[in-house]
């Protein structure tokens, strides 16, 4: 373990290096890899779901397996795939964009990743212990209570509790990083929009994941310790869960989509070769969306019977969100207007994001009208709506970001031909799968049913939808092929700025040295890198002399602390198991001691190490 002070040059094995790293760039890659694995897993589940629904009265799987698959598909995609992918980009890009050497708390950054990872692992272990959670990703009570749901829901409650804590501390880290670690001259209103959306999404996480933690605690107490929160006979209330869940659940949508907006706001100006239109309005719209996102949760509960006045208030608040979102849409369009457009894969994803997202937004406004929501509710119309937001919005945003930042991350571009094949397959496959589901919903097909009778006019549309899902699957296969192909065949990048872009991350060397910036840059404008290219000398002006650089030490403690939480969570789940081989109390105690013991160990001061000036000069010469 790297506790000694002068460990800068000590050689570490590759595995040990990745287990102990606190470098934001490496953690970003860990996030991306873990997120992609979960994404592929949940994507395969989606394919199984579509196989089952391809023809009427299909017996490809039982209703129970279907329920488990839809629950895990939704849960994994939202908590364990899209969130870490976004965190991967935020981790990699935000410190570079604000001109920092690392995040505010490198240790917490590593801890956040490992806790998320072990939480995801805990949830995934449910398959081997009596079946996955099966009450839908919303886990509505009483379906999910001790009375009706199997042990899968224990894994849901504990797995998400653990991974959610990791997400929370990572978000705190991002907030502090963005507020405290900006380079001189990088005022809040000079920050790239991706930093702004990352900041606002992190604030949303702090205020939305904590109610979720409370809700999951109630569910866990209900299931493991006979809590009576949701049992009406005992004075409980089952609507309570829906409220708590959606107070978290609605902001969650914006937690995911705002960073995607941020990526689009980086990619569109870069490939339009124009500054972002209406920067201030974009920042304002981001903040307004975040504020309103906490005011609309009841629109998920219109049919639960709260009453017309409440429904009206929440319907109006929901419609209001269309206004700041519309501002963003127009700003992207005006950014492209009159620009020197380059339609590579990143830009294709970003540009197609705009109309696709508008479709999802419009169905969102349709759904916000409480009276007609009674018709749409729990039909495929809703499924189509949120997949337009999540795939049409977030996934396309993430892919745009992947193609855009890939050369900075890995030192080579992704292949453009394969990229364009991927884009068109995904774009066509996506609309084929989900557009038709609007109509399926409108003619009455309910969601969350594992099969249906033929002859209701649903057969062809379901077949089309399933075919579309396979086309999307093919697109992801092409993406994976592209990553492998490009790793071997693609031209290595040595210039710092392969896209002729605008923001500070492109001022760093490729590959990026461990310390990012040898000298902290002096920021003189919005789009600082573009400013220096046009008005300056083509490189960032330094804000400090070249000197020894202070870096944090790596540590295995985040890994061990997270492992402790994992063991603790598993011990809690064992309480409900019929035949635990080891007493649950022992397992809980081991996990508990491990977590808190490593915390006590961590209180030992670790001041990191310094990269000496000569070393810095040597590295700069090599990469520059």
């Amino acid at each position, binding site marked *: 373990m790297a506790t000694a002070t002068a460990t800068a040059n000590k050689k570490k094995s590759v595995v040990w290096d990745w287990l102990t790293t606190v470098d934001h760039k490496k953690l970003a890659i860990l996030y991306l890899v873990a997120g992609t694995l979960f994404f592929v897993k949940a994507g395969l589940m989606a394919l199984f779901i579509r196989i089952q629904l391809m023809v009427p009265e299909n017996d490809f799987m039982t209703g129970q397996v279907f329920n488990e698959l839809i629950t895990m598909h939704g849960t994994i995609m939202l908590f364990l795939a899209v969130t870490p992918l976004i965190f991967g980009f935020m981790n990699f890009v935000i410190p570079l964009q604000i001109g920092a050497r690392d995040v*505010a*708390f490198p240790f*917490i950054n590593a801890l956040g990743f490992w806790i998320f990872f072990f939480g995801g692992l805990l949830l995934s272990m449910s398959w081997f212990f009596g079946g996955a959670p099966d009450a839908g990703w919303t886990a509505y009570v009483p379906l999910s209570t001790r009375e009706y749901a199997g042990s899968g829901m224990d894994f849901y409650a504990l797995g998400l509790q653990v991974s959610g804590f990791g997400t*929370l*501390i990572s978000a*705190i*880290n991002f*907030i*502090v990083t963005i*507020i*405290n*670690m900006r380079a001189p001259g990088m005022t809040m209103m000079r920050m790239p929009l991706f930093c702004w959306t990352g900041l606002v999404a992190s604030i949303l996480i*702090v*205020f939305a*994941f*904590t*109610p979720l*933690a*409370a*809700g999951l*605690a*109630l569910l866990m*107490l209900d299931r493991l*310790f*006979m*809590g*009576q*929160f949701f*049992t009406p*006979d*005992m*004075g*409980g*209330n089952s609507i*309570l869960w829906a409220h*708590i869940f959606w*107070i978290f659940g609605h902001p969650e949508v914006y937690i995911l989509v705002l960073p995607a907006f941020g990526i689009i706001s980086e990619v569109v100006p870069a490939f339009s070769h124009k500054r972002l239109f209406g920067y201030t309005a974009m920042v304002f719209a981001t903040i307004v969306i975040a504020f309103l996102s906490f005011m609309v949760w009841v629109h998920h509960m219109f049919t639960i019977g709260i009453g017309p006045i409440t429904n009206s208030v929440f319907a109006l608040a929901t419609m209001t969100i269309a206004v700041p979102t519309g501002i963003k849409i127009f700003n992207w369009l005006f950014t492209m207007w009159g620009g020197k457009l380059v339609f590579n894969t990143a830009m294709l994803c970003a540009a197609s994001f705009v109309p696709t997202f508008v479709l999802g937004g419009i169905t969102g406004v349709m759904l916000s009208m409480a009276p007609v929501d009674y018709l749409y509710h729990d039909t495929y119309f809703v499924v189509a709506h949120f997949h337009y937001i999540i795939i049409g919005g977030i996934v396309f945003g993430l892919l745009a970001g992947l193609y855009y930042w890939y050369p900075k991350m890995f030192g080579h571009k992704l292949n453009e031909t394969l990229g364009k094949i991927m884009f068109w397959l995904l774009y066509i496959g996506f609309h084929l799968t989900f557009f038709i589901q609007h109509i399926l919903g409108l003619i009455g097909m309910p969601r969350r049913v594992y099969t249906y009778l033929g002859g209701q006019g649903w057969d062809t549309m379901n077949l089309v939808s399933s075919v579309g899902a396979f086309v999307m699957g093919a697109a992801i296969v092409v993406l994976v092929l592209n990553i492998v192909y490009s790793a071997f065949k693609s031209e290595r990048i040595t210039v710092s700025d392969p896209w002729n872009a605008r923001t500070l991350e492109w001022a760093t060397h490729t590959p990026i040295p461990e310390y990012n910036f040898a000298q902290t840059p002096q920021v003189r404008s919005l789009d600082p890198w573009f400013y220096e290219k046009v008005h300056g000398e083509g490189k960032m002006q330094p804000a400090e002399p070249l000197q020894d650089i*202070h870096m944090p030490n790596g540590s295995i403690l985040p890994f061990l602390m997270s492992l402790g939480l994992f063991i603790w969570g598993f011990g809690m789940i064992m309480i409900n198991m019929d035949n635990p081989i080891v007493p649950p109390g022992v397992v809980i105690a081991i996990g508990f001691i491990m977590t*808190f013991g490593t915390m*006590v160990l961590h*209180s*030992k*001061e670790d*001041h990191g190490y310094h990269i000496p000036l000569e070393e810095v000069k040597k590295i700069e010469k090599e990469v520059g």
Partner: protein
Amino acid sequence: MSDHVDVSNGLPANPEKSTIEGKNKFLGMWVFLGGETIMFATFFGTFLGLREGTAGGPTPDELFSLPLVFLMTMFLLTSSLTSVLGIISMKKNNFKAMRMYFLVTVLLGLGFFGCEVYEFWHYNHVGLGYSVSAFASSFYTLVGLHGAHVLFGLGWITTLLVRYWGKGITLANAPKFYSASLYWHFIDVVWVFIFTVVYLLTLGGA
């Protein structure tokens, strides 16, 4: 970076915020407490929604006794005061006084925690088991979560005291003591709300 601050003429006036690490801890702690507030708010909401749901079990006005709760409040409020005095001593670079005040804080916190254990034992003894009613579950969850926070805070401050018992105040440990005291104040503020919402509101007949 801690080595950039000149400490040859003694510690600066605000040793907890003199380094970038200290500033980061300060802000990070505040943001964390912001999130904690929302989590507690959710449990408060749950309690307020379910407190009428006694389901034939013991009711709150049969159980709650203000003298005990008053004693607990005194313990915790005083401990908050001593932690402030500890931080003031830290800013005056008086390590011995700081150590003493934080030790008193821990002792008062232990007193509070002991009362709470007794309170729960007593309620359970007179028939308010955890699963008796929605009121029971939500009461134990809210107040118990606060108690768990107190316990964590005690462990935190004790660890700091043990770790730095003979070491004096440095720019590295000042932010740690400061964060712990912020957390301790937060626990105290939550207790003020528990005292009001859980105990006074019930006994006051609202």
